[in-house]
């Protein structure tokens, strides 16, 4: 599957903790996503701050796909796959969808120099994502949008023992 390939390509190293979830193109499915982020964070020993940052990032990305990606075929089988992985102290999020072609990285940045009260807010979500995550990469693979986001995990974000070298 393209998802697995892209994950391996992105990591190039062994995955310590890995979680994968497929959502339908319905906003209510974001609740399932948030539950998954919580259970993943507990398993991986991540603190609440990083867990909340993941929720914000994935809300922006997945919410955008659901709201705008499937507008041409609202009733068709829109699927969004979210993978969360940790490898070598890096958090990696991969969002794959079969919506129409959309590269969020080419969205124009909101003009932060002007007073936000007067500006339009297009691109604000992806801007926030870019500030929280360290790197973003977009690929079109096999007719799917694949967005790979990574962030090095600050030392203080990990609590307790993290399982080593095994996939759970």
């Amino acid at each position, binding site marked *: 599957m393209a998802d697995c390939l892209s994950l391996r390509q992105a990591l190039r190293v062994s995955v310590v903790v890995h979680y994968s979830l497929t959502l339908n193109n319905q*906003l*209510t499915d*974001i*609740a399932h996503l*948030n539950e998954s982020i919580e259970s993943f964070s507990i398993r991986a020993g991540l603190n609440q*701050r990083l867990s*909340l*940052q993941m*929720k*914000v990032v994935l*809300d*922006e990305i*997945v*919410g955008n796909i*659901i*709201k705008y990606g499937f507008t041409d075929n609202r009733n068709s089988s829109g699927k969004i796959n979210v993978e969360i992985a940790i490898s070598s102290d890096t958090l990696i999020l991969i969002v794959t969808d079969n919506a129409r072609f959309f590269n969020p990285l080419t969205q124009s940045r*909101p003009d*932060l120099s002007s*007073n*936000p*009260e007067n500006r339009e*807010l297009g691109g*604000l*979500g992806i*801007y*926030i994502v870019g*500030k*929280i995550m360290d790197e973003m990469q977009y690929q079109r693979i096999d007719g799917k949008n694949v967005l790979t986001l990574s962030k090095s995990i600050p030392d203080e974000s990990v609590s307790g023992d993290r399982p080593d070298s095994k996939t759970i």
Partner: protein
Amino acid sequence: MKVILTYTESILVAQFNGSLDTVTAPEAETQLMNKVDEGAKFIVIDFGMTEYIASSGLRVLLKLSRTLKKQGGRVSLCRGNQQVQEVLEISGFLQIFEHFPTLEEAMNSVTMA
């Protein structure tokens, strides 16, 4: 997410128990704008029970603020957790909204010209 609206004299305090995100922002917007239609002018957004805020939540704050400003009203924010404050900071919202550590400070500030 649950919206709790409390009036203290002329100030409306709005609390969001949960998150202000893509799913919940439309409901928050409806409830707040209904109160504006009913005449609320000074609104304190109390994030004390809010887990996180995303850009969809920020848009609600902005719409609320723009509408109230036209009517001589105002919005103040308070008690956001680290994540809430981080998103407000990143997005430039702290340039137009005042965020206070306590509800009391936000309530004192919101009615001041």
